[in-house]
């Protein structure tokens, strides 16, 4: 017999875990997209050396498993004297991971910006930085916004892996609860639903932000 009421005593743990997941996701999304923007700018405008280094970073992260990256940061780096809490290691792994994927996504947006708009900014006297932030960036984001949204949601869902280094996130809470009350079916069903709701809310938040950033589109 299914029994969801056995979960009630653990509501607190679930909510705490949910909060950790939300917190990690917010920081990772903001930081990861910032890293991606900087990386894309470096790869698009930078010199050969910078472009090569960013390219290596992107390929290294995109071609290795997230859980290995996470274990390397948490279990491997202490060998170099870098000791991080589980929460810090989890966040850094997410930042580095989203940073690499979003570099590649945002770069595609930059590449799709018409050259004429950059020239127009230049002959109006804008500095390269002004041209980038005021002229290029928003239309570039507009073009890749759906892909970027999906990638951020993937990272949120992927954050479940940080429970493996004992970050007390939503999945960690689920594992703990089912080990106590043996209600695996119920626990994982509820937690899966919570992730689903998180993903839907996240997409709605992105859509709302997009409607604001790309408000010129509504006019047409």
């Amino acid at each position, binding site marked *: 017999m299914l029994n969801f009421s056995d979960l009630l005593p653990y509501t607190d743990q679930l909510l705490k875990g949910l909060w950790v997941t939300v917190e990690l996701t917010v920081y990772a999304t903001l930081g990861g997209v910032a890293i991606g923007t900087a990386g894309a700018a470096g790869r698009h405008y930078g010199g050969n050396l910078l472009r090569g280094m960013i390219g290596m970073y992107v390929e290294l992260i995109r071609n290795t498993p997230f859980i290995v990256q996470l274990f390397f940061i948490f279990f491997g780096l202490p060998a170099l004297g870098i000791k991080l809490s589980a929460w810090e290691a989890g966040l850094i792994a997410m930042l580095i991971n989203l940073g690499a994927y979003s570099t590649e996504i945002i770069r595609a947006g930059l590449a799709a910006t018409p050259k004429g708009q950059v*020239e127009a900014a230049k002959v109006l006297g804008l500095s390269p930085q002004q041209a980038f932030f005021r002229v290029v960036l928003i239309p570039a984001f507009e073009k890749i916004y759906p892909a970027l949204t999906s990638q951020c949601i993937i990272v949120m869902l992927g954050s479940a892996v940080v429970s493996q280094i004992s970050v007390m996130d939503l999945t960690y809470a689920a594992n703990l609860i089912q080990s106590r009350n043996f209600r695996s079916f119920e626990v994982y069903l509820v937690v899966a639903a919570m992730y689903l709701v998180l993903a839907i809310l996240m997409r709605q938040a992105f859509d709302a932000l997009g409607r604001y950033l790309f408000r*010129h589109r509504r*006019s047409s």
Partner: protein
Amino acid sequence: MALVNIDKVHKYYGDLHVLKGVDLKIQAGEVVSIIGRSGSGKSTLLRCMNGLEAYQEGAIILDNKEVSSDERQVRALARSVGMVFQSFNLFPHLTVGENVMLAPKLVLKQSAEDARKMALDKLTKVGLAEKFDQYPDKLSGGQQQRVAIARALAMSPKVLLCDEITSALDPELVGEVLKVLEELAAEGMTLVLVTHEMNFARDVGDRVVFMHQGKVWETGPSAEVFANPSTPELRSFINAVL
């Protein structure tokens, strides 16, 4: 000294020799039309005049400043020379007003209020003040190009470069853009136009520069050049386009 001094300018794209020693002087207040077949180097010359393209030999002095493609130099030149492009190049995420106000605010450090006044003034001049809060994609091509002209004028340039600015327009929209240019010419604005509008070049322009094979092949007062071309190349060009 002339407003624009172009002295023996050579430009190469790799092995391709595009400008082969161009000499040209443009006085303040002149309206100069650069005509010629495609590939004759007329757009390249125009783009060398504000540093968008680098040239390898010779010198261009504009408003007493040496033109080079150095990033800083191009920015310094933005106060002297404006440019309007064939493809408008308005910023799609900014309203018409924001397009015009962007550079005065960021580059000339105008206050929001001053920039707004300037933008309204320039948009009124091109007849589009009522589009201030619209986004560019709601406008026709002719309207977009007029906004681009207003945007360039908001920097108070001494010379306005126009690179085939009516070539991307539907025929029925060409007139409204040419009318704006005509008004600017009447106010004494220095205009340098790369154009295929021969009637405009003849009737509004003071001077025509015919480019051929990377050189200024023939130049003179507009009416005279069209009536009595002295080189066979210009004669055949005029016969082909008129």
